[in-house]
């Protein structure tokens, strides 16, 4: 049942590199990461690749397979013809460290820029109450395994290094939306999302949603609603009027803009 798989793998570091050809024996039911592990164990002990769970749960093994951003551990060899050569390259949007390993610190920096969750106080009995329907929206976003494939895909930064400082990327729009929709959060992050995180630069092409291994509907469920809420806050005269005359809408209820001094 086993067969010889032809692979081309990018080998190199920040000073340069190229695609190298390999042939490796693989068997039924294996994924691309298995083939790479076998290469490591038998032909090329120093081939650099990140992985942890091998089950699509940790988001470590992101790379590009035949040019498409994917998880190495969730891409089955049976998706390809046995005669086809599989090409594996590192994520393009991030600087390469070595072989398939890239410097993803951009994402950790963006995570730090985000104002954290600010809850209301607990109920009198020391517990918190939220309804299942209200947490479900946030739960969809919290399925994110931080593989950063969406970040790698988004055209705003994929080939535009210069956009990076002003653009947090889809993974973090998700986080803004999650906090914004959290039933107990007290911050209003909409202006921040628009200005500092660069939500406005997203033109809803949905490429990020297409590559998300968790099937999170990033564009439809997070980015678009977030954009709508930003517009509400910015231009909606009724909301404006409401906030002046003391009629509060739910979005503003109990929330403060973290940029405003308390």
């Amino acid at each position: 049942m086993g067969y010889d798989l032809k692979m081309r793998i990018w080998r190199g570091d920040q000073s340069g590199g190229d695609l190298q050809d390999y042939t490796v024996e693989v068997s039924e039911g294996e994924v691309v990461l298995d083939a790479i592990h076998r290469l490591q164990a038998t032909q090329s002990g120093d081939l650099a690749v990140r992985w942890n769970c091998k089950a699509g749960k940790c988001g470590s093994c992101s790379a590009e397979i035949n040019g498409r951003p994917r998880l190495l551990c969730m891409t089955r060899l049976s998706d390809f013809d046995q005669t086809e050569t599989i090409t594996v390259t590192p994520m393009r949007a991030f600087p390469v460290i070595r072989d398939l390993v890239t410097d993803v610190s951009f994402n950790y920096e963006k995570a730090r820029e985000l104002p954290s969750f600010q809850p209301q106080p607990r109920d009198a009995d020391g517990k918190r109450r939220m309804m299942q329907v209200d947490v479900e929206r946030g739960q969809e976003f919290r399925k994110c395994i931080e593989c950063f494939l969406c970040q790698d895909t988004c055209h705003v930064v994929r080939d535009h290094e210069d956009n990076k400082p002003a653009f947090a990327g889809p993974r973090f729009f998700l986080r803004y939306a999650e906090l914004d929709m959290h039933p107990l959060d007290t911050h209003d992050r909409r202006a921040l999302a628009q200005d500092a995180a660069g939500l406005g630069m997203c033109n809803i092409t949905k490429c990020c949603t297409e590559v998300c291994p968790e099937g999170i509907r990033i564009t439809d469920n997070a980015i678009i609603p977030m954009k709508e809420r930003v517009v509400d806050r910015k231009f909606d005269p009724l909301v404006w009027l409401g906030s002046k005359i003391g009629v509060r809408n739910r979005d503003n209820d109990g929330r403060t803009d973290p940029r405003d001094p308390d």
Partner: protein
Amino acid sequence: MARHPMTGNEMSSEAESRLERHHYDVVIVGAGGAGLRAAIAAHEAGAHTAIVCKSLLGKAHTVMAEGGIAAAMGNRWPEDNWEVHFRDTMRGGKMLNNWRMAQLHAQEAPERVQELEDWGALFDRTEDGLISQRDFGGHKYARLAHVGDRTGLEMIRTLQQRAVALGIDVFMECTITDLLKAAGTDEEGPIAGAFGYWRETGRFVVFEAPSVILATGGIGKAYKVTSNSWEYTGDGHALALRAGASLINMEFVQFHPTGMVWPPSVKGLLVTESVRGDGGILKNSEGKRFMFDYIPEFFKAETADSEEEADRWYDDKKNNRRPPELLPRDEVARAINSEIKAGRGTPHGGIYLDIASRRDADFIRKRLPSMYHQFKELADVDITAEPMEIGPTCHYVMGGVEVDPDTEATSITGLYAVGECSGGMHGSNRLGGNSLSDLLVFGSRAGAAAAAYVSGLDVLPKADEHAVQAGERRAVAAFTGSGEGGENPYTIQHDLQQAMNDLVGIIRTSSELEESLSSIEALKERAKAMAVEGHRQYNPGWHLALDLRNMLLVSECIAKAALERQESRGGHTRDDFPGPDPEWGAKNLVLRLNAAGTGVDLTHQPLPVMPDDLKSYFEE
């Protein structure tokens, strides 16, 4: 300096030879649930704190936990309280647990879980809007706080986001290879820091710190069939031994009853216990629901003895007893093992776990989304339509660093251990869900204790520079070593995994254990002649060569303790000593590095005695 301030990414290769130095009050080795919680506590207590981890932040094993966090919050069952949780934990561990740890754990888990909500966690809810709690093996009441079947992801993300919000320094993809003791002291001397290397560049780094908290997780990579990742090489266990601390309970390794068996590429991958908690049952190739044949005397009173009663339990828990599928893990794993051995296994050498015929497809997809996804994507199996094939897989090590129950301090001043790499809390067998709560409860205690220790110091211990140089020499030995003819570290790892699987597995006998010890000795010899190709920049072969030193030491601990304990209890089953023995039930086996530093010595130690008021919970 070109290093990124947060991730430590160093892109310039000329920096390779320079030794980097950092100073902290508390250095935490590990960024799983235990390490992150400890860091938060140490930071909040005012200590200058750093977290060091082998992988990127957020990728530690904790991320893979599925089922839930055990805490007697009483949201589903007002009758539940810490006393019941304490009793369940001790009984699950066959009374070999450190009673004080089990007590603190049961008492403090509810607040530690609720705290996660303060930091943004979104747990599944009850109808009243409280944190929902689900059933798991060995727990009398539905007790596990959960988020579908991705609870670990929720927990690690919440703690990670909290640590980032507090501005705690994180050194990612940085591996600690040695602990540093204070200069001019003997083996008992205090901790003065840690030594390691950046995986990205291979550059060495010294952390000078009067206290170090080990939170490195488990040892599962020593086995061939395992649910654990490459990180689980027993680093914390080995670091503690080499620093002069002791390990206990190392003979107890948990084999989870339900790992995937097919295809080979995913063999060992975990199938969460929630499948059984939510109605799944175990069947052999003859279609028989066999667990009824394996109910031990110890659990007879609380386990259903007919399918009818077991099925009624899901809806009416008050008037029925629990299905035998929800016995503690060691019982279920042994039963599955026996069925397979008796020739009643599935085509791929497992048995069937069936939820498809018992729950409707919507329910399954909603309650077990990751399992649905995992089987669909990796095995082409639709778990809403057909049964899964499963078998035991190495999952968790009960054994670990011996610590003081209240502070998690080891016998070495300034050194602490928490999470899976610490020992005592779970006795001979851990209940599902009790690990995530363990991480939170003892992580928090260790962080506070380490910070308090440091703030009380007048003079900081100074790290021994000879040890730093020795660490550097040892680390590069595999490059400079025997060169040609040197062995490939991957081959040695493979042979070790095979030996541990075959000889120190789920069912053990004295002859096989003796054989395993000589295999380990032979592997140690072979490891001396290891050779690594390439250079120091992000080189997995080199990383493995360094981790192997720890794996070999820890494997020896397991095999040695398993040979010594002549009884069967929890995660240690001896074919030649099939029952539990009360005399053994009163002792721990303690392992320390031998005088030559080449292996381990073993001693017996009486178990701490439980006070009478707690003993009364176990009188029937």
